[in-house]
């Protein structure tokens, strides 16, 4: 839903901004062997492969292999140079000057000499991104940039509209070549470039097969040095069960996201490694405060009390996750550890309901002056995602125990979206947000965000929260901001506009012959050029 980068990244930012200029990035001198092929399974297919028009996770992962940004992050989650050697920012934080590497060349276009990477490409990318005819979800992220100008062939200068925190991280957007797209001004999905993109990254797109397999080969003259593994092949699957079997039977070597139900089976097999990484998203039950019953904070809180989150986490997700009490990533600077998640306490829940004027009706359902406490819970249908079904059913079950009647209504994805964000025809929804970088929660809880196709679908408005949010946006002082967020956190935890559930631990599974596998929580393949397969396993 919302664009994101790692929240951990934001923390490390505080440190590394001071560390300029960076140490020169080292080449592939680790002496690990080259060769071998990596087949990895994806659930679904990439729509497009360029970094601008594409907006699904699968394409995002692939473009991570093909392209580079001006800056990147290393395995220690620190900002490191990629296409830029170094960056200079003005003291007012409005001017960013990037000095580009001179040794970077684009992947060869068939029948052409590989072109060198220059400032023009950066400007081109920025312009294309911002062109009205280019449809991309990136636009909103870069509206803070005033202008981009080329100083010389290897120097680019960005002027910001206003100083913002961790701006540098945002310059990790991928650069596309000026000579890439056929159209010189904007990029649409009909441009051939989106299906055979060329980049500067460690892997070159060779072709897409009839079965929609994306085949990538090592870029011999990658400026960080040739990646170890010769070939990456992304295989699309339409059935997760089959995909996990494909792994178990060595038809593929890696699954980027393992379905929780398959974790035990894979754990049981010595040939495979399960590698956890942060899901960077959290699940919640969101309430529609337009419904007078739910406008009452006590009811929302009662529901939160009535739900046994730990039990669900344990029996549905093998306990792989953390229960949260607020809209921030646990462990991030914004997360307030003093606020404990509400414990599972049905009796408290009932107390609260009584307090709110509800009494047990004849049929065991709570009612307040004749009105039953019966809510419709709308859930989007996802093929074979029983995780969602499980949570929803359990929720219904828990609330039944305290006399709240839940009518679970599963709806097809797009019509669910309209119900929730356009017509607001729901009482409760089950959904997940991915964390916003800079942990900005404006769009979720600020009263100005109430309306069609706005993120504050529950029409939650609380002047106190509003004012805190505004205040936090104005300040640039990190500590100040931190305290404000801790405040916000505790308010929201108490007000329960959502029942915050958990942030899960994702698992990638791969055959143990893959070595030195480091995973970026979100882009996944950021460090893939360091992965390798020992000779004896390369067959």
């Amino acid at each position, binding site marked *: *839903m919302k664009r994101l980068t790692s929240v951990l990244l934001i923390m490390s930012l505080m440190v590394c901004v001071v560390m300029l200029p960076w140490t020169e990035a080292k080449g592939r001198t680790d002496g690990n062997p080259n060769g071998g092929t990596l087949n990895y399974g994806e659930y679904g297919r990439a729509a497009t492969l360029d970094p601008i028009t594409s907006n699904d996770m699968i394409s995002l992962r692939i473009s991570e292999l093909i392209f580079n940004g001006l800056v990147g992050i290393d395995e220690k989650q620190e900002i490191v140079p990629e296409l830029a050697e170094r960056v200079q920012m003005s003291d007012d934080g409005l001017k960013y000057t990037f000095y580009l590497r001179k040794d970077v060349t684009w992947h060869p276009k068939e029948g052409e000499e590989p072109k060198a990477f220059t400032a023009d490409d950066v400007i081109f990318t920025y312009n294309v991104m911002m062109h009205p005819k280019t*449809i991309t*979800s990136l636009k909103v992220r870069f509206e803070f940039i005033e202008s981009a100008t080329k100083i010389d062939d290897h120097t680019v200068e960005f002027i910001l509209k206003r100083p913002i925190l961790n701006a540098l991280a945002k310059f990790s957007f991928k650069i596309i070549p000026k000579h890439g797209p056929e159209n010189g001004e904007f990029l*649409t999905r*009909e441009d051939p470039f989106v299906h055979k993109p060329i980049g500067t990254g460690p892997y070159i797109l060779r072709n897409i097969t009839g*079965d929609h397999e994306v085949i990538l080969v090592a870029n011999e003259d990658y400026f960080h040095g040739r990646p170890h593994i010769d070939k990456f092949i992304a295989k699309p699957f339409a059935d997760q069960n089959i995909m996990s079997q494909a792994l178990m*039977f*060595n*038809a593929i070597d890696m699954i980027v996201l393992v379905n929780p139900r398959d974790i035990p089976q894979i754990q049981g097999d010595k040939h495979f490694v399960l590698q956890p990484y942060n899901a960077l998203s959290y699940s919640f039950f969101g309430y529609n405060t337009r419904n007078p019953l739910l406008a009452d904070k006590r009811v929302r809180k009662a529901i939160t009390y009535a739900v046994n989150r730990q039990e669900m986490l344990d029996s549905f997700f093998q306990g792989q996750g953390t229960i949260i009490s607020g809209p921030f990533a646990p462990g991030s600077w914004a997360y307030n550890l003093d606020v404990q998640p509400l414990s599972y306490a049905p009796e408290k829940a009932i107390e609260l309901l009584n307090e709110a004027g509800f009494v047990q009706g004849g049929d065991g359902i709570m009612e307040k002056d004749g009105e039953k406490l019966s809510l419709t819970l709308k859930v989007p249908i996802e093929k074979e995602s029983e995780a969602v079904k499980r949570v929803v059913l359990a929720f219904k079950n828990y609330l039944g125990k305290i006399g709240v009647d839940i009518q679970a209504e599963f709806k097809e994805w*797009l019509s669910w979206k309209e119900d929730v964000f356009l017509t607001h025809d729901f009482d409760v929804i089950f959904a997940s947000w991915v964390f916003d970088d800079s942990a900005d929660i404006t769009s979720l809880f600020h009263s100005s965000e109430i309306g069609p196709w706005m993120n504050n679908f529950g029409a939650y408005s609380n002047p106190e929260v509003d004012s805190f949010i505004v205040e936090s946006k104005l300040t640039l002082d990190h500590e100040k901001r931190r305290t404000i967020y801790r405040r916000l956190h505790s308010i929201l935890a108490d007000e329960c506009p959502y029942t915050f559930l958990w942030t899960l631990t994702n698992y990638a599974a791969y055959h143990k012959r893959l070595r030195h596998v480091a995973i970026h929580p979100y882009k996944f393949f950021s460090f893939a050029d360091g992965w390798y397969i020992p000779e004896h396993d390369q067959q």
Partner: protein
Amino acid sequence: MKLTSVRPVATLLSRELGITALLLFGVSLVVFLVLYLSPGDPFSLLLQGQMATAAAREGVREALGVPKAWYGQYLVWIGNMLQGNFGTSIRSGLPVLNEIVRVGINTLYLTIGSMFVTLLVAVPIALSSARRGTTALNWPFTMFAYVVSALPVFWLGYIVIYIFMHKFGLFPILFRFSRDQGLSWLYFLLPIFVLGIGNGTISEVVRFLREEMSRVLAEDYIRTARAKGASIWAHSFKEGFLIPISEIIASKIPFILGGAVVVEQVFNWPGMGRMAWQAAQDRDYPVIMGIAIATAVLVRLGTLLQRVVYIMVNPRTS
């Protein structure tokens, strides 16, 4: 017979073409309407990854130069279609026609193949029980046919896959991951087999063919044939076999296409069914329309086949 039946076939073809054109128009219109009625904006998928505001959504339409009113869109679409341009997929931006042709071939394999399997199973059973009535020989087979046509197709698929993996360890081949060409035919065979067995029509086919055949076998002219010592098969072939079979093929194509949607997902088969499903979820209307047209054409071809056979065979019509 050849001579007598060429002319009527020609006239038939010309007439069918007209009808088909009409039907295609109807199909496209209805599908488009349904699309329009179903909630969800096809272009919202371009903005996925952010919560697109109403304004942003309009912006997209502006950018793509899409008419606002649905009939506008439809007219544009059909205008292009008549020039043989089916537009490009909203999701992938690829030209719809090529895509459909590419995956359509696979689905065609699947459909025709499994139709063949279905007949292969059903026909002998039907004929033997039409000729001889229930016998100790054909009864078990009949029951078998009934059982398999009562199985949920995807479950059958799972079973087959499971068996082939765990018993024969053939997984890589099943999914074309093996470079071993020697066994790759299995990849084609299994889905066809599963869909052919599990499309739930076998019992129907058996019943229909059996009834038709036994009706024909009771005809006077068959008695004459027997009195002549001629082969009953040869004499009952046209009315008792050819015509019913062509009818079955024509009428079952839509069913099997439906089954393909499921089987293609289970077997990871790059076909039209999967494409259709994806497109329907994205409301990717150029693709959906394209597929609707393609299926309609396929079905019409089936009907056409039936009519042609009927006319070729049946002297009364010439």
